[in-house]
């Protein structure tokens, strides 16, 4: 299974994401922001970092990169897309997911091992987990506060589109402790914490992150959701 990882100017976690894909059993394919060709990949990861220096708003300029034009089009046709941190911000800016990510309510950059509760496990990116499963993966962001109007938040919760919530503390002021959301069909997932940094016991707080990448491979071979 070929999973594309996009590199924008300022992406930081593209290599870790590609490595996570490999450890999960997939073939990582590097995609370039300036190239609108997806090289025949079966799914795409938008990695963390500071695309275009976070200028204007996080993800606001990346949204208009040539590669994103193709990704938005293909995502509309069901291509699985996972946006992590800056990738989540890009998905919101591109209106593939509702809401927006804003500056942490306490203004500080936060970097910690974060406990999460998995809530939606029938998506292309979370079907390796169980409902209510608690995982620990790193969180690192300055603008990770998830916001949306109450009607949107009610719809996300009512339709079961919240993928994961923060446990113990709300690290960035996200409304209703939301750490990740999905589109109704479960092909598109945005997540603020970083599963790609929790795939090996040597360097991560756990290997819980691997489940996101193995999930999409299970989906693609037809044993997932």
């Amino acid at each position, binding site marked *: 299974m070929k999973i594309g990882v996009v590199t924008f100017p300022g992406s930081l976690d593209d290599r870790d994401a590609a490595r996570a894909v490999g450890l999960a059993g997939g073939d990582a394919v590097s995609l370039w922001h300036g190239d609108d060709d997806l090289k025949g990949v079966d799914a795409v990861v938008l990695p963390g970092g500071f695309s275009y220096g976070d200028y*204007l*708003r996080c993800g*606001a300029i990346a949204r*208009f990169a040539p590669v994103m034009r193709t990704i938005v089009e293909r995502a509309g046709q069901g291509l699985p897309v996972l946006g992590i941190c800056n990738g989540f911000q890009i998905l*919101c*800016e591109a209106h593939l997911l*509702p*809401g*927006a990510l*804003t*500056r*942490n*309510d*306490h*203004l500080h950059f936060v970097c910690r091992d974060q406990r999460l509760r998995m809530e939606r496990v029938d998506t292309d990116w979370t079907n390796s987990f169980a409902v209510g499963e608690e995982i620990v993966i790193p969180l690192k962001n300055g603008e990770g*506060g998830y*916001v*949306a*109007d109450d009607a949107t938040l009610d719809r996300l919760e009512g339709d079961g589109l919240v993928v994961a919530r923060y446990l113990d503390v709300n690290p960035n*002021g996200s409304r209703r402790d939301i750490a990740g959301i999905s589109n109704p069909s479960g092909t598109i997932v945005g997540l603020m914490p970083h599963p790609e940094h929790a795939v090996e016991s040597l360097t991560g707080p756990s290997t819980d992150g691997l489940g996101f990448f193995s999930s999409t491979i299970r989906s693609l071979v037809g044993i997932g959701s």
Partner: protein
Amino acid sequence: MPRVVVDVMLKPEILDPQGRAVMGAFARLDVHGVADVRQGKRFEITLEGEPTDEVLAGLHRMAEELLSNPVIESYTLRVEDAQ
């Protein structure tokens, strides 16, 4: 040359921690009587020619799609008087 100014502000219901931090500094610098501070962005766009309807339509599109995020921000656009 004609100039168009776009001001982008967070919507009132969106928390503005930067503005709040600025307000905190006011108090520390002994400036009182301030009820709220909101921080926004100002874009000064210098035109090559006159601000025709077509040009302004394009800039409104940019203000809505690029310069602001309508989920959390609103914008105002105005043509500045020539100096």
